[in-house]
């Protein structure tokens, strides 16, 4: 009977081998199918990206024509002296955007990313933009700073950048607004 158990054991082993080889063969066929689907999905992904691009441009052309378009970006340089928490943006006295940052977003900014905080329309002429930046400053103290810029809106697209920089002279963060040419 020990022999028959051995036979069973051998049978189990053989079944495992058969199962494995059958699985390998099935896997190879399935792999071909998957490859075909993968290639198809890849082509679809490309088309979806292209369509998304076109719709993105169409949306901007419809909503924010170049002659009145006004965009505000935000960047963080280093971020040693300020752990960004929230930002509020005013244009001509009205709050147009506010944002609370997640850790992932702050990391993305600190690595060189730039957030498009606001996009809207402005008439030609002089305007004023003010930003309020909040976060944790040196020694873990709550920190709040504002910056203002008066600028002339022309008939071209206008882009501003809120720059949050570390100032090594006094170990303080510095907020400024600059206009992209």
């Amino acid at each position: 009977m020990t022999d028959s158990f051995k036979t069973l054991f051998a049978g189990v082993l053989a079944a495992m081998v058969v199962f494995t080889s059958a699985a390998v063969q099935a896997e190879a066929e399935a792999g071909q199918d998957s490859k075909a689907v993968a290639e198809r999905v890849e082509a679809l992904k490309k088309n979806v990206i292209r369509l998304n691009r076109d719709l993105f441009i169409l949306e901007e052309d419809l909503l924010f024509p170049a002659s009145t378009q006004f965009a505000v970006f935000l960047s963080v340089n280093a971020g040693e002296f300020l752990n960004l928490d929230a930002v509020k943006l005013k244009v001509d006295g009205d709050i147009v955007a506010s944002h609370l940052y997640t850790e992932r977003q702050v990391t993305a900014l600190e690595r060189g990313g730039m957030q498009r905080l606001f996009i809207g329309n402005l008439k030609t002429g002089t305007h004023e933009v003010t930003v309020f930046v909040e976060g944790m400053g040196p020694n873990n103290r709550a920190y709040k700073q504002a910056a203002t810029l008066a600028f002339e809106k022309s008939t071209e697209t206008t882009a501003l950048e809120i720059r949050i920089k570390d100032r090594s002279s006094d170990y303080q963060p510095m907020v400024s607004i600059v206009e992209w040419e």
Partner: protein
Amino acid sequence: MTRPVAFIARVFRSRLSALLVAATASGLPLMIGAPAMAAGDAPERAKDPMYGWVLYNYYQGEAFDALTLLDVARERGGIGGHGAYPELVEGGLMLSYGLTREARELFTRLLEDTNSRGSYDSDNEETQVTLTSQVRTQAWFYLGKVFYLEGDYQLAYENLQRVDADVLEYSDSDLYAEWLYLKAQLAMMSGAFDRKEGITAGEETSIESLREALEQSGLWAHYLSYNVAMAEIAAGEFAVAQQNLSELIADMEDESPKDELVAEQRALLDKSRLSLARLYLRDARFDDALALLGALPLDGVFSDRALFDYAVAAAGRGQMQRALDALDALSQRTLFLPWREQVPYARGYVLEQMNQPRKALTAFTQAAEHYENRGEELVTARQALTEENLNARLSFLRDSDEIITDSYGRLRVTPVDFGLSEVLAGEPFQQALGELNELYRMQSLLMQRESQFSTFETMLETRKIQRERRSREARFELEQQQADDWVEAQESFRSDIEAALAREDAEFFMTTEQKALKTQLDKVAATLARLPDDQSIASQREKYQRMKAYFDWTLANDYGVNRWAAQKQLRELDREMEQFRDQRTVIEALMAGDEEHNELAGRLIRKAAELQVLKAQVQEALAQARRILISRLDQALEQQNTELRRYLVASRHAQARLADQLFRASQNPEVAND
């Protein structure tokens, strides 16, 4: 050998997953981020807001959004000030988004371009990618690994071959160890084991040299040793495999891995012991097998397998009670695993060996009932096999509503029904599941975009209404300006001037001052005409005549100047009127039709049609992916069913045999006594 056993595949994947998760956080973005950071430690400032925005999305893992923005930037004239770095970023994004073939072409072009150009050329900074050799070599490594994971071993080999070993070892020793491991895996896949002809001399040397190079790299070396041993078993070289597994176990027992690797090394050690014990069982070395299996923990990953093999070893050694105890312990475990289906049969077998035919008969009867029930369950499960059904058997790791994936788009999923674990561990199943998820995401995005179309139409309509209102206002303004009267007045003025020029009418071109003087002179003349002819009046008339003569002389003298001034004013008026007429024409043309509106409306219609085509294609691909996934699962269930049927037949045979034996024994007391 093409793949290690299921466990090692799982462990290998989890190890890779850990590395890939780490890569998401640092490695892969670092690979892409590094070129931008090559100039210094701090990240380089974006010289184009669009590029900064792309990076913002990229560093958050939003590959689709970042790729869209890059495409938008390209459509609007490209990103300025960063040379070809945006393309390098795009390559990384393509990898993250599963566009591996595209990424390969892009990387190959970029990296080969850099290679061929050699060192940094400051004169041509704008158009070049200046990659450090570390970044280049890591890029090749990641690209190779992507293809390895996709099962495209030829491309994986080609890309891994481009890695500069010295540079990789110097820059990242972990990646270097993984690179050696992948190369060894590829060397093993080169066909030698599949052909069952043993390892050719060259390949052995290659794998051996890679093993030697991996000697100091801990787990990677052990994984490779284990996989080599499995390959040897598959090639029928059991003695060599035994020797290698023994050495591997001894090596691991002597080591004290880092805290984070303790559990992983422990699992590999247990698995190696289990594999070696099976080799001992094969050679009927039951004592050696029992010693090894007895050392395995009862709560480990492989405790179930170890218990079963322990029962086999004990039975082989003739220690049936120990075998039964192990099987009883195993049958108490409720978690379903396909291989454990042999336990009910084995219990009956051991009881029979213990010379307890009645208990054995009961055990075989119960086993047969169990297999019948399980078979029915499997049939029902196969009949009711749907995608929803499948999803209910899987647990996806989620972040809010999104299913979490690794940097290579693979889903983080574990089976709720452990009967699926072996199917799920297979790369094709993982890929099919990943593709299905990608297709659903695309479908959802397209539906979201489709719902935006009505908003776009509203925007367009609003724009049209606003424009019509402005046109009405402009028309009213034009009417208020009485433009036709102005044109008529200009024409009349022109003809008067031309007529005066023709008759050289100096009076016509008089200045305002001259006209005032003439009026005064005319008044004086009229007054003098009414006065009597006396002496004092005569002197006044003479004075008037002198003044009149002087005035006429002045008029004649100023004629040229006055005429020129009038003509100049006429020319200026002509110009103004020309401009006025042009503006009016433009305004009237704008009021009459709206080309921009038509162009936008045309784009909207075209994109709506494109979206519908894409939706249909995604739907079709979804059906295909679903079919593949379900058929794969169905095959797995079918295999389980075949196994069950084998055990059911064996149980029924044993049942019949024992019933017959007991019946004959009851008929013949002598036999019963025996």
